């Protein structure tokens, strides 16, 4: 103890007892310490448990939420399902006048447009994320990242209006005639790209969807790519791998789960997207072999007709469509999950 400390201590003896305790605590407080620590530990244990309980409740709440939505949809769609039974899933007819409804055309349209969207958006999104994490100069990273995220911020209806006024006419005049002519004599593909060029149709809707889900795939992929420990990448570079090889053999395997998460986010968005699709898909309750022909999706049908649907059976059929969309999502996700498991096994 320094002289100064002794002095202060003597002075403190005549002064405030509060400080006294604090000082003497080193000696006296051993017993108190044990009690304090026990108390603190109890408190921690309590808050620990409360936190865990909160997280668990939140997880269960998410379950309950979907349960509620499903139940509401199920009850709403009972009249239609009772009326049409299995035919509802197999019939292409959609006739509000005679009240005969079938969901086949919107089911087909939903699946095909989402498939087109993912085929375009996933490679693009991964490549852009790759560019942003590996190649892009530092000063450019943030602006480009924000720019891509902006695509997610543009309201859905604006995509729709833009698609109708800008994209569709452009495709109709400059792209589709060429495509139709190119594939006209190729067996198989000729049916897939048969005219006439309307500009709006299944393919245009898929393209708009691809633009819309791109930021989801890109943002998430970039975030997980950046989470790869630099050591791993440096080791690979050290072995003389090219950027491409590092991506292919180090980054992608390491971040696989996260990338799939991003793809799922995008796919979820694509399956359920409403307004943008409604404007550019042509809304025909028909299944045609050509990707350039007008079609319809489940969500577009609901958005188009729900607000004007008069009559219980009509409304109920639209709600049943919503239920089917849930079911489709369910199946698509289950398949994706299964594929993921297989990949995991193959890699070991």
């Amino acid at each position, binding site marked *: 103890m320094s002289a100064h400390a002794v002095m202060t201590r003597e002075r403190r003896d005549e002064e405030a007892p509060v400080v006294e305790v604090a000082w003497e605590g080193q000696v006296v407080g051993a017993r108190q310490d044990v009690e304090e620590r026990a108390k603190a530990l109890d408190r921690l244990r309590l808050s620990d448990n409360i936190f865990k309980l909160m997280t668990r409740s939140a997880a269960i*709440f998410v379950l309950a939420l979907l349960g509620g939505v499903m139940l*509401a949809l199920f009850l*709403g769609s009972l009249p239609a399902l009772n009326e049409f039974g299995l035919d509802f899933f197999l019939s292409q007819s959609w006739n509000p006048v005679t009240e005969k409804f079938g969901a086949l055309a919107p089911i087909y349209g939903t699946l095909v447009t989402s498939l087109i969207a993912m085929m375009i958006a996933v490679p693009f999104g991964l*490549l852009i994320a790759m560019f942003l994490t590996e190649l892009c100069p530092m000063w450019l990273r943030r602006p480009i990242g924000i720019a891509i995220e902006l695509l997610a911020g543009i309201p859905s209806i*604006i995509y729709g209006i*833009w698609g109708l006024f800008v994209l569709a006419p452009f495709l109709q005049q400059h792209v589709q005639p060429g495509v139709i002519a190119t594939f006209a004599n190729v067996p198989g593909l000729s049916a897939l790209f048969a005219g006439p060029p309307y500009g709006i149709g299944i393919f245009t809707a898929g393209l708009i969807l691809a633009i819309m889900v791109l930021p989801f795939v890109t943002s998430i992929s970039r975030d*997980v790519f950046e989470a790869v420990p630099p050591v791993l990448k440096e080791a690979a570079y050290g072995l003389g791998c090219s950027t491409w090889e590092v991506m292919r053999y180090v980054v992608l395997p390491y971040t696989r789960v996260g990338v799939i998460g991003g793809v799922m986010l995008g796919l979820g968005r694509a399956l359920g997207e409403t307004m943008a699709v409604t404007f550019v898909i042509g809304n025909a309750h028909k299944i045609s072999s050509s990707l350039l022909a007008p079609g319809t999706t489940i969500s577009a049908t609901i958005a188009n007709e729900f607000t004007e649907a008069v009559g219980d059976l009509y409304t109920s059929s639209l709600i049943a469509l919503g239920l089917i969309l849930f079911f489709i999502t369910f199946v698509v996700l289950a398949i994706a999950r299964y594929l993921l498991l297989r990949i995991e096994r193959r890699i070991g």
Partner: protein
Amino acid sequence: MVASVGATLIGLSWLALILGALFWEGFSGLSLRVFTENTPPPGSDGGLLNAIIGSLIATVLAVAIGTPIGILAGTYMAEYGRHDKLTSVVRFINDILLSAPSIVIGLFIYEVMVRPMGHFSGIAGAVALAVIVIPVVVRTTEDMLLLVPNTMREAAASIGLPRSLMIQKIAYRAARSGIITGILLAIARVSGETAPLLFTALNNQFYSTNLNAPMASLPAVIFQFALSPYKDWQKLAWTGALIITLSVLALSIVARALTGARKSS
């Protein structure tokens, strides 16, 4: 690698095309009046004040309700129940919720809130948006927490840090930028949602901040005005869309700035 540069350029050119159209149509309509006057009838001057205020209230409320639930649920899945049944079920359910068409969410809230209350209300709109926020936040929170290396958790455990503190102090910090990205994506997603608001908050021609009465919102106004025959209404619709887009842009920039310079490798 040329491919990835090309992809980026194409992605950016899409953006340029859409933004170009937005600015072309909406920029000339941006004036002080937009922020100080209410939505006009066709043929008169006006702004979007009631819609902007309504949208702000609804979005803030939705994020305030949805984000804590989403983060907590995501935390459970990544930290506590990594391998239990509940987690795998919730993950699956959550992905389904993600793709629920927003109009269906609107119908659900209509049944459980609007009908029992007997009238449309701003709060019902906010809850509908919160239901859209939750799955996005759950998904990103879980993914980001899973990426936090386990060595961090072990280090925290070795110095006797309780689990809840470890999560709050270490895991959240490590996953912060990712989680914020998730919240941003969620905000971006609800900022343009029309369908769930139509049957919950309805819309309001006049200024109203009463959460118990119909409340205006930008997307609903954009939707109604864009499809109208009147040029002045269509212009306001474009301007409104531009405002939403610029707000999301500003949010992105602020969030990026907050999370600091991103780690470079």
